[in-house]
């Protein structure tokens, strides 16, 4: 489980910032009867061609931010622009430019799989023939070709999600919004959806997604904004975010009895320990020097009379970044 870094480099490309798709200025939302703002003076810019991730726990303000950008949540202060158009002033124009995939299944239950796409085309002003052609193309592209005439009730969760993505990009939106795109999907469907999103992005599709899965943000996004309590705590590429904590790996050791003694021992004897914290039944330590680390830790523990139940070394993740920023875990 030693950390490896091969994919980090090519994940670092950032969209063409010369053409902005999303811009917010001090964007804020306080819901009625709430003391604290759900989103607090958010300043954000997303360039054309980016996959941009809003990462944070439930209640961080990700969905509210996406809601304000997709015309559904009315900001209490600040501005939001899609392609330079003020979202609050011209929601009808903005809706021409965006595609939205929400957390729930919002497919039209009265229509077939193909009709769900076809009528979306008509809704956005495509001609009858063109809409039919694009519908067939997208069914093939999203591996739903044999399902066209079936009711949407027949689709599995993963297929329904794919159809919703196909419908959302049907009119070639300037930006595709996805709210927790893989929440509730099985691991296989999640991987399939990631592939689809990467494919769309390679064709030039700008995507903004919200997620509380750090793997998702790490794997997919060119840039990630880590959010908590309605504010952006850090914003950079996943690689740079992970670099920012100054550690290469996370050492986790579970021991019998009190783990605090071990922290002291390791801090004294091992170089490059940047942070440590107690977890259930053990300790978690951020280290920058991983050379022969595991045998050394085991020897140190033994010579100090501490018996180790489990030991592991892992690459630093966005989760680590989040913990360093907030002192709590992402999944809480």
């Amino acid at each position, binding site marked *: 489980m030693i950390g490896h870094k091969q994919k980090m480099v090519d994940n670092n490309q950032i969209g063409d910032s010369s*053409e902005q798709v999303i811009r917010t200025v001090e964007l804020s939302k306080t819901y009625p009867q709430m003391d604290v703002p759900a989103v607090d003076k958010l300043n954000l810019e997303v360039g*054309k061609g980016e996959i941009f991730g809003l990462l944070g726990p439930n209640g961080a303000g990700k969905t509210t931010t996406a809601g304000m950008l997709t015309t*559904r949540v*009315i900001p209490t202060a600040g501005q939001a622009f899609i392609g330079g158009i003020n979202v609050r002033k011209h929601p009808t124009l903005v809706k021409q430019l965006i595609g939205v995939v929400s957390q729930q299944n919002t497919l039209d239950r009265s229509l077939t799989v193909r009709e769900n796409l076809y009528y979306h085309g008509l*809704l956005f*002003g495509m001609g009858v023939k063109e809409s039919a052609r694009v519908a067939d193309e997208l069914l093939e592209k999203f591996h739903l070709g044999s399902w066209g005439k079936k009711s949407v009730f027949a689709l599995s969760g993963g297929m329904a999600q794919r159809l919703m993505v196909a419908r959302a990009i049907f009119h070639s939106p300037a930006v595709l919004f996805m709210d927790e795109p893989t929440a509730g999907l099985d691991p296989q469907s999640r991987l399939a959806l990631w592939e689809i999103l990467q494919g769309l992005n390679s064709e030039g599709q700008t995507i903004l997604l919200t997620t509380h899965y750090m793997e998702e943000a790490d794997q997919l996004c060119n840039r990630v904004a880590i959010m908590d309590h309605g504010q952006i705590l850090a914003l950079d590429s996943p690689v740079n975010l992970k670099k920012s904590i100054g550690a290469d790996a996370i050492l986790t050791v579970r021991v019998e009895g009190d783990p605090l003694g071990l922290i002291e021992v390791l801090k004294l004897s091992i170089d490059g320990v940047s942070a440590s914290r107690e977890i259930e039944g053990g300790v978690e330590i951020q280290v920058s020097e991983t050379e022969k680390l595991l045998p050394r830790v085991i020897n140190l523990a033994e010579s100090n009379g501490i018996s180790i139940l489990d030991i592991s070394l892992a690459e630093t993740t966005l989760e680590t970044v989040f913990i360093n920023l907030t002192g709590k875990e992402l999944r809480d």
Partner: protein
Amino acid sequence: MAYSVTPTRTSIAASRIALGALLRRDLLVLRKNFGEFVGRTLMQPLLLVFVFLYVFPKIGQGIGGGSSNAGRGESAFATVLVPGVVAISIMFQGIQSVAVQLSQEFGFTREIEDRVQAPCPLWLVAVARVLSGATQGLISAVIVFPIASVVHAKGVHANLSFHWWIVLTLIPLTCIAMTSLGLLLGTTFEPRNIGLMFGFVVLPLVFLGGTYYQWTRLAPVKIGGFHWLQTLVLINPLIYVAEGMRAALTTTSHMHLYIIYPVVIGFVVIFLALGLRNFRRRVLS
């Protein structure tokens, strides 16, 4: 596939196209489920005329009947009932095609979430549903009317005559009024409370809506000198619809048309205003 960051259409052009597509979608769904639509549209009127105009006269319990005037009173009742049945059908279409549907789309299927991303103002999404519901109301009026006027016992028949100008103006208007009512109810009641809606709103509207009697006939119901029931039912939109149908389809007495038209238009305005306000509140936060 240009991923353009500038809209290709003006708001008005995009809205007009979206309205057309929303209506097409609703009509396709209607065409797909036409059998079911006809079934649920016909069942209630069929039962009403069967019991009141066939069974009752047969078993000597006919309303308006008596041994001496063989069938004449019953025919007068039939003349009152048939337009009432058309009125009820239009109203139920408003409840079924708009209120029940919307309530489910808001609370259960979440379909509305996607529909409000259509490139048009929110109110137009709601108005599209009102218009397609009104179309269903029109169709139901057309298919219910022959049934209601054909099913009856021997000797009992409704005295019907068409007043085309009223038919062609008032029926579409009442269809829009009833689907606007549907919009208001559908955006007010959660799916789990639909039973409450039927019990406390729909049933009182139907039974106190002048379906089975003319409004003027309520005059004898009074306390002291106060015609309380006759006054109370004036808040019921169905009274005006039923009286309007009597004006359109029979020569029997009815409320003045210069009361019916403005009041029905007034109800359209009130129901639409409140319904659209609710719709907006449910969609935006």
